């Protein structure tokens, strides 16, 4: 079966390409890209006035399976991904049980194959049982198909273990992903430490909890010369530390979430538990620094940290509610609204951080559009506004601080391996 995508504006950051073209997909692959391809004999997508980009990649998703299938499953999470324009997502291993064994990796691949809408690439734990004590069987996990290692949700506090983990992955050529948080400093905090936490009487998590951890990780990354990726940066000082490290040649890459470049800790004044995330929403000066870090490539990737929780869990007192919000279905809209429409990034730069950049970090052959490549494509309307509502979410969970927001960038078609997995109606 062949599919012809007609007259779309193709933006492919891998080759810095931006022009209106026709794209012919044959089977799973992109067969031809040309200014005009004859339409006869092909199924047609009219992409006139739409933007066509490589299928988006989210390298930080929580799918909750196995263990919390009430919150999300591979099935529901990948449907949400498709709706948000993501064709490849990497699932974090803080499941129950944690993904620290090849059999669990195989389970995820099997489940994604059977019920998933998009590609799922598992990330395995750094430490056995995510306990921060002994290394997980990284070599066997790589054979089973994981693309990275992370104890996300917890920092590997034992510096010796982290050093050995970084050394060990050199032989595997896969990145470690670190969640930088010194719990000695963040303690039982529930939000950013600052003026807002002071007036609300809520326990704060100082920015230094992230920065202290990040500084150690940078030192170990430099020492071992191993690939290290730092998850969800949230502070101005973190951006500055990484900027300097990159200048001095440290092999570090980083990501930021849409909520951290969109919201500040002032939102917590509502006591809406959908403002409770970890790392916490920070100050406006941090938000600006994150945008600058995106612009000057200190920050390589935009990742969602999609973290589904039930209404029952979130509809609680602020202290009692869990951290995290869903993000797959609002990410592209927030990127366009907060980064592209404000002029912080060009559309090309923004799309790079959702496609080729994570692909390069994960060493996967994705995130680009060329003849012979797998036909993972996202087609969206840059201008078209849509309203964020609970009812429209495909995710099982509805915990979003953006409910009621109007966002641009409506995803119209999501195509994985030549197959339309989401179509806007």
């Amino acid at each position, binding site marked *: 079966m062949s599919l012809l995508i007609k007259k779309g504006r193709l933006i492919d950051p891998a080759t810095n390409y931006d022009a209106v073209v026709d794209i012919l997909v044959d089977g799973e692959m992109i067969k031809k890209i040309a200014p005009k391809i004859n339409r006869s004999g092909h199924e047609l997508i009219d992409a006139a006035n739409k933007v066509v980009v490589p299928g988006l990649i989210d390298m930080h998703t929580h799918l909750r399976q196995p263990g919390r299938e009430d919150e999300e499953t591979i099935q529901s999470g990948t449907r949400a991904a498709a709706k948000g324009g993501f064709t490849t997502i990497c699932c974090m291993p803080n499941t129950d049980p944690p993904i620290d064994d090849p059999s669990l990796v195989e389970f995820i691949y099997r489940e994604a194959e059977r019920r998933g809408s998009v590609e799922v690439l598992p990330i395995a734990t750094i430490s056995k049982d995510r306990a921060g004590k002994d290394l997980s069987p990284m070599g066997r996990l790589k054979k089973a198909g994981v693309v990275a290692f992370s104890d996300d949700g917890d920092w590997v506090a034992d510096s010796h273990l982290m050093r050995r983990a970084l050394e060990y992955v050199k032989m595997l050529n896969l990145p470690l992903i670190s969640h930088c948080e010194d719990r000695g400093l963040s303690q039982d905090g529930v939000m950013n430490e600052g003026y807002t936490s002071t007036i609300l*009487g*809520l326990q704060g998590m100082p920015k230094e909890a992230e920065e202290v951890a990040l500084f150690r990780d940078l030192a170990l990354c430099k020492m071992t010369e191993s690939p290290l990726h730092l998850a969800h940066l949230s502070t101005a000082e973190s951006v500055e530390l990484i900027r300097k490290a990159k200048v001095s040649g440290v092999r570090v890459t980083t990501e930021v979430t849409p909520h951290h470049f969109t919201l500040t800790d002032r939102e917590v004044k509502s006591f809406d538990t959908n403002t409770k995330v970890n790392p916490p929403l920070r100050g406006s000066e941090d938000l600006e620094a994150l945008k600058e870090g995106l612009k000057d490539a200190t920050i390589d990737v935009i990742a969602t940290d999609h973290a589904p929780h039930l209404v029952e869990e979130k*509809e609680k007192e602020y202290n009692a509610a869990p951290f995290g919000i869903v993000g797959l279905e609002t990410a592209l809209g927030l990127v366009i609204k907060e980064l592209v429409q404000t002029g912080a990034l060009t559309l090309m730069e923004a799309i790079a951080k959702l496609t080729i950049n994570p692909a390069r970090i994960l060493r996967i052959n994705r995130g680009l559009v060329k003849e012979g490549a797998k036909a993972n494509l996202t087609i969206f309307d840059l201008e078209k506004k849509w309203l964020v509502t609970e009812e429209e979410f495909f995710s099982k969970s509805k915990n979003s601080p953006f409910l009621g927001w109007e966002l641009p960038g409506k995803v119209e078609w999501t195509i994985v391996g030549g197959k339309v997995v989401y179509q806007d109606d």
Partner: protein
Amino acid sequence: MGFKRKDLLGMEDLSKEEILFILKTAESFRAVLERPIRKVPTLRGKTVVNLFFEPSTRTRMSFELAEKRLNADVLNFSTSDSSVIKGETLLDTARNILAMKVDCLVLRHPSPGAPHLLAKKIPVSVINAGDGAHEHPTQALLDLYTIREKKGGVEGLKIAIIGDIAHSRVARSNIWALQKLGAEVRVCAPPTLIPPLVEKMGVRVFYSQEDALKEVDIIMMLRIQKERQNTGLLPSLAEYIELFSLTEERLSLAKPDALIMHPGPVNRGVELPAKLADGKRSLILNQVTNGVAVRMAVLYLLLGKS
């Protein structure tokens, strides 16, 4: 000007006019407390539930008395006899109580924002009787009432709040309330018990009690939780007493007519010695009496006119 709110959640969002209106209303209820029969029919037929998720003697008794003196029906609910242990959420507990047809919830809860959650989700009035370290609005109101009674007003007074500012809802509510009425507020504690950027609330920060007390009209001592010495916040209670306890010598640095307040319960010999707590410059028992009148006023303003 009246009082048109459904709930009383905190002092931060009250206007000066609203505060003065509550205090004015409290004056007439204060007079009721001096009568031979200290009871009025104002809230007859109304039901108020006191929902206390933290231990409290003074505030709970004060609310209960205020409710009874307004002739409301009163139901008390506290963690020890609640279904919270069975895993029921706060919101479920509130909705269940509501299904029994009540008119007002008075909530004391360890989590900041708990009364705000209820106020948003349920249609009856919610009164915040203390939410974690966030706010305790009726305490600030009774403190304002007491200061006005003794000093004739609040405008222009210098007031020092001394003690664990970081963990105190009384401090936060009073910082907002006193400044709205024109007082100059100082806070004084070891740096570990001062919350970050508190000066942005408009107060001056002191680490030395001697400096903080200079020329002040009112000294508000806060209760120190003895647990604080085990969490790296204080080396020891003994050191705290040596540096921050109010003594007669320190008191002499304040204005000659300076008065002492304390939200209670007092750790005698810790925040201040018995001699000062019981002395003629202490307003501690006046605060307790006025608390009933102020809470009657709040209940009346929220429930009385519908």
